[in-house]
């Protein structure tokens, strides 16, 4: 295996929560991210999917240092980042940048585009004021906006254009890794495609590594090379893109895929649907065994209530396989042989 650019091992982020103690502390622990591992390579995109509250945004915020990991390791080119102080993290921050979900909230309304795009270089002491203006113009061109618009304010742009500015800002420091947290979910359908194409093109052009977080599975399928599925703070399945979408092996992944409405009336009406009952359990009091057990349509197939008692580990299906799954079920879907070709 080639050396990974970003290697995340057993990442945990717990928040104090629950009842307050006498001294103002909290009694409980909210395990937002509970042992997540993956790696990113240059020019590759890992899709991270899951429902709200599963911890995918917390993973993103921890990777860019907006939150400190409770434990685990984040290695960028072999350098350990987890546990670094804010100041010691700073030189690495320019190498991992983030694109945010809401293009209306993530740009300062009182700054001009020139100032928004020049600020990263200013903070990192990389360019003089004059150079920063040129840099801003170049960045606008890279993301497909008119470089003459650098003196405009965010409100003068539409949602899609603002998202392009957000992308330009993330590129300002020539990062190696881009964390994209729901970058298209606030956009209209006709604009979504423009931004997805732009992200795709930038990935090739600058051989960027993406962690692409989204709840829209069709978007993830389009842009990712491999996909990890999260449920309640843990990765339950991880696989190369087509294998995951064509032969999902975890019951949650299967339910998730079958729940996505297809924009084709004939397919949509003919397909088999797995409708899960109930809600995602509270991460404050997760079930003792497998977190998905209370909603799992196939839990009865595992003998001896094992799912209720033990938490399954994310394990490779075969020693050399890139498919990993956290489930006690036999691989009885029969498609597994096809997938390992």
């Amino acid at each position, binding site marked *: 295996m080639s050396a990974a650019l970003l290697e995340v091992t057993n990442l945990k982020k717990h928040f104090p929560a629950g009842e307050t103690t006498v001294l103002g502390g909290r009694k409980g622990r909210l395990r937002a991210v509970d042992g997540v591992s993956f790696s990113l390579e240059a020019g590759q995109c890992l899709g991270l999917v899951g*429902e709200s509250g599963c911890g995918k945004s917390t993973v993103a915020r921890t990777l860019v240092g907006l939150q400190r990991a409770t434990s685990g390791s984040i290695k960028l080119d072999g350098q350990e980042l987890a546990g670094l102080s804010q100041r010691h993290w700073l030189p690495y921050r320019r190498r991992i940048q983030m694109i945010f979900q809401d293009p209306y909230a993530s740009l300062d309304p009182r700054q001009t585009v020139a100032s928004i795009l020049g600020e990263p270089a200013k903070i990192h002491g990389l360019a003089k004021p004059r150079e920063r203006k040129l840099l801003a113009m170049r960045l606008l061109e890279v993301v497909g906006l008119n470089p003459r618009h650098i003196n405009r304010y965010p409100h003068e742009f539409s949602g899609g254009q603002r998202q392009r500015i957000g992308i330009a800002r993330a590129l300002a420091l020539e990062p190696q890794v881009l964390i994209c947290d729901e970058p298209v979910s606030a956009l209209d359908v006709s604009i979504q495609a423009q931004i997805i*194409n732009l992200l795709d093109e930038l990935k090739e052009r600058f051989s960027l590594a993406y962690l692409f977080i989204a709840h829209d599975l069709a978007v993830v399928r389009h842009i990712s090379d491999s996909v990890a599925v999260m449920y309640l703070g843990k990765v339950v399945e991880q696989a190369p893109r087509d294998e995951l979408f064509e032969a999902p092996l975890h019951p949650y992944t299967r339910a998730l895929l079958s*729940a996505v409405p297809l924009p084709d009336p004939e397919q949509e009406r003919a397909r088999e649907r797995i409708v899960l009952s109930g*809600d995602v359990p509270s991460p404050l009091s997760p079930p003792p065994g497998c977190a998905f057990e209370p909603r799992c349509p196939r839990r009865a197939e595992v003998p001896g209530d094992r799912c209720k008692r033990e938490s399954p580990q994310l394990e490779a299906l075969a020693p050399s396989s890139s498919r990993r799954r956290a489930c006690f079920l036999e691989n009885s879907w029969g498609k597994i042989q096809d997938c390992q070709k």
Partner: protein
Amino acid sequence: MALLEVHDLVVRFDTHHGTVRAVDGVSFALQEGETLGLVGESGSGKSVTNLALMGLVPQPPGVIESGSVLYEGSDLLKLSAPKMQALRGNEISMIFQDPMTSLNPLLTIGRQLAEVLEVHRGLGRKQARESCAKALGDVGIPEPESRLDQYPHEMSGGMRQRIMIAMALLCDPRVLIADEPTTALDVTIQAQILELMRDLQQRRGTAIILITHDLGVVAGMSDRVHVMYAGRLVEAAATVDLFRDPRHPYTAGLLDSIPRLSTSEVEPLKSIAGQPPDLAALPAGCAFAPRCEQAISSCNEAVPLLESIEQATATSPRLAACPLTNSEARS
């Protein structure tokens, strides 16, 4: 005869940036027991159209310039406030997009539900409570009795949306307007809610107007689809026909620009160039012309009318507001 008929509805907003025609000459009919999908992007006027049906357009800044909404022989736009109130939530009811903000956080679920029955049906508290518990059971909420005494914040988003649906259906309405009913929900919860709506419609025969931007939801739920752009209807067809063979360039562009879950194509997506139009400064002709690949000079001259292109199926004529498509169909 149609259950609900909208004729040439025009809703205007007077804003600081000028006058915006959020809905500009929309006409359609809703048949008994059907689901009509209304698709469009933000600002296309789909929500305002339905707020107008319910008499909920804030005036000012909104002005209903013209049009009529016929329901049971009377024009809803001309009804007095008390008469409209008697109808709203009773015969025509609505589910809103955001289950987090559309319930009153200060009242228990039971109180909010019972109010509907006390106002419209004149039920006493005890009777109303019994009916409410039954309604919650109908939408798949476990232990409905104990839920009645809880407050909205004690429930998840999916649960709250079920309560909204239960509330909208309490009086057995004939028309249900669902404005992005699942947009704020996760996909597995969305699947539950859509399943519930299908099931309720089958049992009660409620006619549904489903407003959404999600073409997948429309494909699975609706019998017919209307597509809106910049305040106007640009295409209307039976769902199957629309997805198989979109006739308006905007509809075709929309369908091309969504990534598909079922294929692993790596080609760039076909996107619609440009930006959505500024409603305060619409072009003189077709609002889509500046983004349209097929536009010719005459597109910029006059607003194209929504015309019948062919008789696709006996029940549902096909309409499109594009002279190019229409002339092709005729020749």
